[in-house]
């Protein structure tokens, strides 16, 4: 069975602090994809990153970085020097390609509050 767990329901930080959002996934498939999405207060989910199971290189994009570790089935997301605009709900998702259906499994989300 496929599953994504985001144990942190809500995190509050002060601007300029670093913050890490945890994501743990479960799957028995060897080929899969992991995603992070941001849902700001306006409501529209915005794609942040996609990573396939064969690429464990960490990725950095500006203040955002992602740490993919297959050994612990984790795909954590770090925001460096957080800003108020980072306040949003962040979702981690898992997708396993299938012959007739690509189903996306979303975690329950982590609400990040960045205070000025």
């Amino acid at each position, binding site marked *: 069975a496929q599953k994504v767990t985001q144990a942190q329901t809500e995190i509050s930080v002060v601007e300029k602090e670093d913050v890490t959002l945890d994501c743990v996934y479960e799957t028995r498939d060897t080929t899969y994809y992991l995603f992070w*999405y941001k849902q700001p207060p306006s409501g*529209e*989910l915005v*794609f942040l990153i996609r990573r396939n199971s064969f690429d464990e290189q960490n990725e950095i994009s500006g203040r955002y970085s992602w740490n993919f570790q297959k050994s612990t089935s984790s795909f954590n997301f770090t925001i460096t020097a957080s800003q108020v605009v980072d306040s949003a709900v962040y979702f981690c998702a898992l997708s396993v390609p*299938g012959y007739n*259906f*690509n189903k996306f499994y*979303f*975690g*329950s989300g982590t609400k990040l509050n960045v205070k000025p």
Partner: protein
Amino acid sequence: GAGVSQSPSNKVTEKGKDVELRCDPISGHTALYWYRQSLGQGLEFLIYFQGNSAPDKSGLPSDRFSAERTGGSVSTLTIQRTQQEDSAVYLCASSLGGSLYTGELFFGEGSRLTVL
């Protein structure tokens, strides 16, 4: 269009009425998904379309829910005899390709349904 378009953005209805929610995916996207997000909750999968067919309808909560997609483009989610527990934001997403392709999902802004 440039993005996934959903209408109406807000719908208030009385219990027992039928509602239709519309999704216009990104041009050329063959895969289309409907999700439901209750207040403060994660994303609940409803149904997936590949072209005009729906390989997986397992997420539809009851037989009051139905969806169709015509011309491989616009999709309509219909809820008959609405109940208060149907109140939620209904999100539509589309992606390129279908089986064996797992690109990111592009989400619309959602349709907020309130059943009084």
